[in-house]
């Protein structure tokens, strides 16, 4: 992330870190509890590791990776189906770069591409619509993964395809919502944390008010944060302060871009094209109404309805990605980590996605190897 709005003085971050460590230690002395927070967003996982925040807080504040990495939480069966989609000669499959190396039960999109399947990496879903326009005699399918930040952009692609009345564009959507999964983590998974570092960019769409239930129902504090060193440090500092004062609240530390009610235009387009559906999450299972699927009105653009894709039940591996995204295991606790599972030969998506807990740990925190 670039340093557009960061204090000129790098000493600010260092001082903040000292303050935060001091307060966390005194809280621990008083209560015997090390402050433990979950960073919901995978970009935070990545940024906390890259900037060294995670390392400097080690032994003072425990930071657990959460479910906010779209690739990591995608159910294996969905991944297998998306790879199966690409196995047809006449189809062009477009995807974000994130998905390309995720291992399927048989192979990854990458290996399918190596063997000549037409798989294209795009930066924007709208590029996939353009590709469909340029290839009128071939089916173009976009693999639509993502949380609330990305779903409005997926909707924009559907809108464009609809306006142009493209017959050869469709989307395989497997999207996720933040609120239901946080609720599930707190009620069913009994995740032991003292607060949430809340996602910055999802909150752009959702708004600050979306998290009030954490306080009302669970007395759980949360701070919305940006991705700069100082932003993350000050957000974690606020969390420790609220914990110390036993006064949980939802705070917005990213006011420059996150508004109380989010982005209404994005919300509207998202719900024009998508409707809530039950979604299966890797490692968690089915969570009711935790995803969005393409509305019936636009069924012609729904690849799940357009193509008959059948995949079997995926094989079980010893990969613990599912536990990782619930904050129930750390990468070092997985028997495969760094040995059978590395970025070059990933077993699970947490090692593939740059913002996956295992990948970030491998790149930035690993001690040997």
């Amino acid at each position: 992330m670039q340093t557009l709005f960061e204090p000129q003085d790098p000493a600010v971050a260092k001082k903040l870190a000292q303050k935060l460590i001091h307060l966390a230690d005194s809280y621990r002395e008083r209560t015997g509890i090390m402050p433990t927070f979950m960073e919901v967003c995978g970009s935070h996982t990545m940024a906390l590791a890259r900037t060294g925040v995670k390392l400097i807080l080690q032994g003072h504040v425990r930071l657990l990776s959460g479910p906010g990495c779209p690739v990591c939480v995608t159910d294996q069966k969905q991944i297998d189906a998306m790879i199966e989609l690409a196995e047809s000669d006449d189809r062009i499959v477009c995807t974000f770069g994130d998905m390309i190396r995720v291992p399927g039960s048989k192979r990854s999109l990458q290996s399918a591409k190596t063997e000549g399947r037409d798989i294209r990496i795009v930066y924007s879903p709208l590029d996939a619509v353009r590709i469909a326009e340029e290839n009128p005699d071939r089916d173009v399918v976009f693999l639509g993964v993502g949380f609330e930040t990305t779903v409005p952009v997926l909707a924009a692609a559907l809108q464009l395809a609809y306006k142009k009345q493209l017959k050869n564009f469709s989307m395989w959507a497997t999207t996720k919502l933040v609120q239901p999964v946080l609720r599930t983590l707190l009620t069913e998974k009994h995740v032991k944390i003292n607060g949430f570092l809340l996602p910055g960019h999802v909150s752009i769409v959702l708004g600050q008010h979306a998290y009030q239930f954490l306080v009302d129902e669970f007395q759980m504090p949360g701070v919305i944060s940006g991705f700069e060193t100082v932003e993350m440090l000050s957000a974690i500092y606020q969390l420790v302060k609220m914990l110390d004062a036993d006064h949980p609240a939802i705070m917005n530390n990213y006011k420059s871009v996150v508004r109380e009610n989010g982005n209404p235009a994005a919300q509207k387009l998202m719900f024009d094209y998508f409707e809530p559906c039950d979604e299966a999450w890797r490692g968690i299972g089915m969570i009711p109404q935790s995803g969005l699927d393409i509305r019936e009105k636009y069924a012609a653009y729904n690849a799940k309805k357009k193509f008959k894709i059948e995949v079997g039940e995926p094989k079980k591996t010893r990969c613990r990605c599912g536990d990782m995204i619930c904050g129930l295991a750390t990468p070092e606790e997985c028997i495969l980590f760094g040995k059978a599972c590395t970025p070059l030969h990933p077993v699970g998506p947490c090692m593939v996605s740059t913002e996956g807990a295992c990948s970030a740990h491998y790149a930035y925190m690993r001690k040997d190897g």
Partner: protein
Amino acid sequence: MCVGVPAKVIEKKDYTALVDVMGTRMEVGIIFVPDVEIGEYIIVHAGQGMSIIDQNFAQASIHEWEKMASANVI
């Protein structure tokens, strides 16, 4: 969860804008930030502007961090 980059709007059309990220430019959609004006910054995700950056809040945050870091009382 979602990579978002601050980008400065340097040309504006109806539904798209040319933005500059530290000298690298690209075309992005602005349907979610239709009111953005040239010279303002937006957060870009997957080729779409998602939010206009409020520079006042950005400045205020910097002051807040500096105050937080230098305050003697915790």
